[in-house]
């Protein structure tokens, strides 16, 4: 697929979308759509529902691009939060949902990305996040994974795990804060690497 706007940042594309520029939205989809769909599929475990969540999220991007503030968040982050919110809303509405959210589906991960570079970057990023998750205390990792990938609310988790709601809240906060720290550390390591390898 031809890349149309490669010299423009995601944030500039969102500003163009705010002025009704359709090619800019198409380019944002080409950049973020695959990750968005992978996320929605992980939460919803159903291709049709996952596509619906992505479709609704991109329509929300089209409608609300003018309210996006680049000083607050990266554009890709904003889009992924919209996708996740839609996916979670849908999964909570579905009764047949969430058989085993923690099960890692290797077939899902091994399909190739659009290009070898993108595939390598995704693999690197996935391994970075997964190794950071492994360093969390089990109860914190469990709370984060069940919430983010499983779509469970804090009170649903308290019921499921048989612990007080306050415990779930503090596990989630401590876990996410620790994960942020671990990812910051590994991002710094990653950024120093080229100095030694080149």
């Amino acid at each position, binding site marked *: 697929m031809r890349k149309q706007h*490669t*010299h*423009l*940042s995601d*944030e500039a594309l969102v*500003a*163009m979308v*705010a*002025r*009704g*520029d359709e090619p800019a939205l*198409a*380019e944002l*989809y*080409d950049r973020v*759509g*695959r*990750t968005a*769909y*992978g*996320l929605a*599929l*992980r939460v919803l475990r159903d*291709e049709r529902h996952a*596509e619906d969540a992505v*479709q609704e999220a991109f*329509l929300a991007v*089209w*409608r609300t*691009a*003018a309210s*996006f503030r*680049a000083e*607050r*968040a990266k554009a*890709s*982050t904003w889009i*992924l939060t919209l*996708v996740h919110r839609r996916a*979670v809303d849908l999964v909570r509405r579905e009764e047949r949902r969430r058989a085993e959210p923690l099960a890692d589906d290797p077939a*899902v*991960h091994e*399909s190739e990305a*659009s290009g070898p570079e993108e595939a390598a970057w995704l693999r690197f*990023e*996935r391994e*970075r*996040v997964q190794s950071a998750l492994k360093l969390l205390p089990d109860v914190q990792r469990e709370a*984060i994974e069940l*919430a*983010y990938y499983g779509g*469970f*609310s*804090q009170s649903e988790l308290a019921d499921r795990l048989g612990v007080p709601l306050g415990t779930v*809240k*503090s596990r*989630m906060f401590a876990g*996410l804060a620790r*994960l*942020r720290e671990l990812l910051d550390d590994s991002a710094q390591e990653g950024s120093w690497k080229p100095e030694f390898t080149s």
Partner: protein
Amino acid sequence: MEAGIHQLTAGYALDALDADERRAFEAHLSSCEHCQEELASFWETTAALAVAASGPEPSADLRERILADVRAEPPQNVVPFEPRRRAVPVLAAAASIAAVVALGIGLWASSLSSELDDARAALERERAAAAVLVDPSARTVSLQAGEGQLVVSQRGEAVLVLHGVNPAPAGKTYEMWIVPGGDIASANRAGLFSGHEGAELERLDGTVRAGDVVAVTIEQAGGVDAPTTSPIVASNPV
């Protein structure tokens, strides 16, 4: 209680709050700078979790369905243009984009040197342009020649969004003009750009006033003081 509601930032970033707590947290968020900052950084963390979930490609028609959705509804911010006067003759005779595209074929590689432009300065210009686009009080003005739009803020800051402009041929540049009253003889320089594959987002130097026309011509590299060729892009009068 205060500590309690701050702690909900994590649950909110993970979309794990129940409906009533979500509402309570959003009400709190609007007035709590600490939580806004915390949330912004937690969202970067959850975005990493999103990337880690990446899987197979969606079906090809998902892209088409999204674009069909978008075409089916009117853009939110675009102020429909109402012509105030007839098109200015000299600009109405603007050279077709097709001619420029033909000129550009085979020559675009020579613009690679422009890729070495100070990337930071380019990013700054891009941010300044984006700021005008998202300004809700800025007006959209349609083009009488060329594909795209002109956006003008109330203070007269102007941004051109262009499609279908190829990189400028070797030894040439695109030059932007602010043309008072549409009289090309009095055109004022408004900046240069080298052109890219695909879309162009350019902030003009200078101030655009009511009745002005914005135009783009192809000139010798480095630019000229007055247009020497027919415009390839011309806006309607602002």
